[in-house]
């Protein structure tokens, strides 16, 4: 039982803590996050701007910028330790078994290299394809992500593409080597709904065909509703809720998750001039309050919330739905 469970685990992150060096000493940005993804599973990671989504992902690949480092925690991929793996090994995993889609296409695409060559490179170096094979595959990949005239477009430089096309080139690069795990950071922010739908279908197809696992980082709760199996909600560098997707949307527990769901504008809403938003701003790294990080903005905050940090605890008997909130705990005890 136990061993069967570990075997199906593809990515296992435990207590990941990331710190930024500041003038006032180290500030914690990612605060002891636990994450796991099973083989063939799709995990959605959502959370407010600045809550640490991108840094979490970059730290897994050891791509953190200067002055930011992993202070604690373990990350295992396919049974191997990502933090202690040699650089050579890591280079093979990066872009090979783990496909990456970065948030900012203009900084991760090489501006002076044709996109066809950028797509072909990993296929040649990591998958041993010939130039000709790699080129044909590059054309195919661009077609799959819905870029019209892909035979011609592989000649283009990044600046000759529209914002959404650049984003799709990034997705194509992420998928190029048919990875075991795809980590995509806000991969469809610039895409319209029809193309989003096409990308979602493409990822679902590959998941079925290759048994690929996916970590989909996003702020778009509507988009991932039909794509992911499970959702992890981050707030100020911690996991505040974790649940199967249907459960999370039907029965959100954490006040932050509820606020997030309530702020989504819906097409079926009557057009209104103002939208709901969660008041206030999230705490900055290094200036987080004692106790629950959401307390300053939480409509349910109690005294205990300002002094103690709530733990991520199961709220259902099955244990698949967890939340870190004293109010949730209290309600359950009262029931």
């Amino acid at each position, binding site marked *: 039982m136990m061993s069967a469970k570990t075997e199906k685990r593809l990515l296992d992150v435990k207590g990941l803590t990331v710190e930024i060096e500041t003038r006032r000493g180290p500030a914690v940005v990612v605060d002891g996050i636990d994450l796991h993804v099973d083989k063939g599973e799709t995990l959605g990671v959502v959370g*407010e*701007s*600045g809550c640490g989504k991108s840094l979490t992902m970059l730290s897994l690949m050891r791509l953190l*910028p200067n002055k930011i480092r992993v202070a604690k925690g373990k990350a295992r991929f396919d049974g191997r330790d990502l933090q202690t793996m040699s650089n050579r090994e890591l280079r093979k995993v990066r872009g090979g078994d783990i496909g990456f889609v970065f*948030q*900012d*296409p*203009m*900084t991760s695409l090489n501006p002076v290299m044709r996109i066809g060559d950028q797509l072909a490179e990993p296929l040649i170096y990591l998958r041993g394809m010939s130039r000709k094979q790699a080129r044909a595959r590059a054309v195919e990949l661009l*077609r799959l992500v819905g*870029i*019209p*005239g892909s035979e*011609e*477009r592989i*000649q*283009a430089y990044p600046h*000759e593409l*529209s*914002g*959404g*096309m650049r*984003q*799709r080139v990034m997705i194509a690069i992420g998928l190029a080597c048919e990875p075991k795990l795809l980590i995509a950071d*806000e991969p469809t*922010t*610039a*895409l*319209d*709904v*029809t*193309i989003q*739908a*096409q990308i979602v279908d493409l990822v679902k197809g590959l998941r079925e065909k290759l048994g690929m696992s996916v970590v989909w980082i996003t*702020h*778009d*709760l*509507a*988009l991932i*509703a*039909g794509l992911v199996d499970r959702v992890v909600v981050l707030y100020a560098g911690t996991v505040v809720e974790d649940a199967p*997707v*249907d459960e999370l*949307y039907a029965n959100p527990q954490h006040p932050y998750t509820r*606020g*997030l*769901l309530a702020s*989504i*504008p*819906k*097409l*079926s*809403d009557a*057009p209104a*001039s*103002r*939208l709901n*938003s969660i008041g206030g*701003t999230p705490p*900055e790294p290094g200036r987080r309050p004692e106790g629950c990080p959401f307390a300053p903005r939480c409509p349910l905050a109690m005294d205990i919330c300002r002094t103690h940090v709530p733990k991520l605890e199961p709220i259902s008997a099955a244990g698949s739905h967890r939340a870190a909130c004293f109010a949730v705990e209290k309600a359950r005890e009262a029931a």
Partner: protein
Amino acid sequence: MGAQPLLKIENLVKHFHVRLGAFGERAATVHALDDVSLDILEGETLSLVGESGCGKSTTGFTILNLHRATSGKVVYKGQDLTALDEKRMRPFRRDLQIVFQDPYSTLNPRMTVGEAIGEPIFFHKLATKAELEKKVTALLTDVGLPPRFASRYPHELSGGQRQRVVIARALACQPKFIVCDEAISALDVSIQAQIINLLLDLQEKYGLTYLFIAHDLAVVRHISTRVGVMYLGRLAELASRDALFETPLHPYTKALLSAVPETDPAHERSRKRQILEGDVPSPLAPPAGCRFHTRCPIAMEVCRRVVPKWKEARPGHLVACHAVNGE
């Protein structure tokens, strides 16, 4: 009644010349924008929607003369902007701002956030040195960032934080018109709502006009006065928000509206979207006649040959489609 046009766009065309082939031996033309005419009315939010690559950003850039128009006119205060060089454009720059789709490439990496936001204020002499810091602080607060961020560099920010710095910078010089190119799509819903509310407040207070480029139709429905739908470099339809969402006329608009996702996982999984048949044609060789004919479910013979006229089908509701009769 009715607002005055702030900008009159007449038959605007933008073609890009690119080189193809392994050695760049073949020249080709990208038809990014073809024959677009519309008025942008004072105080309105005109949204532009349409598939990725259909020419929305190009429209915004060409209107602001950041791309040189191939032909056509953009008239602002009686002046055709397309005829101006950068120097003569300068007096208009303060009025006409843009929030770029790609925030990273628009911020100078060696300038702090405070300098980036303060620069246009300083340049246009909108505040004394003493007031400058207060102004920057107020702008940062408006976009939901702590004032301390003024001393950070762009690379020290998350994607959504950078996006908000770019918005603050555009607002800094108190413009009349802002092109918001996917300005809020990198933001989570709560901050999105905060920024939308801010944009609406400023509009009410100062009569700002927005050209709002976005793909999130729910957001577009919330904030727009009118909505234009583009397909492959041409305008397909333009109408008031309600007319467009409730009684769309163009077959492409109808398909676009059917694809919006909803936050109901079970429904979302089982739902069949009206995914358009066929690939998006290449703007390097757009189809003759109606550019949508290769994918239109009701295309007729004439659609393959004749470009449909841009006509007023109902009062204030413009459309380019042979199947829609004018009144």
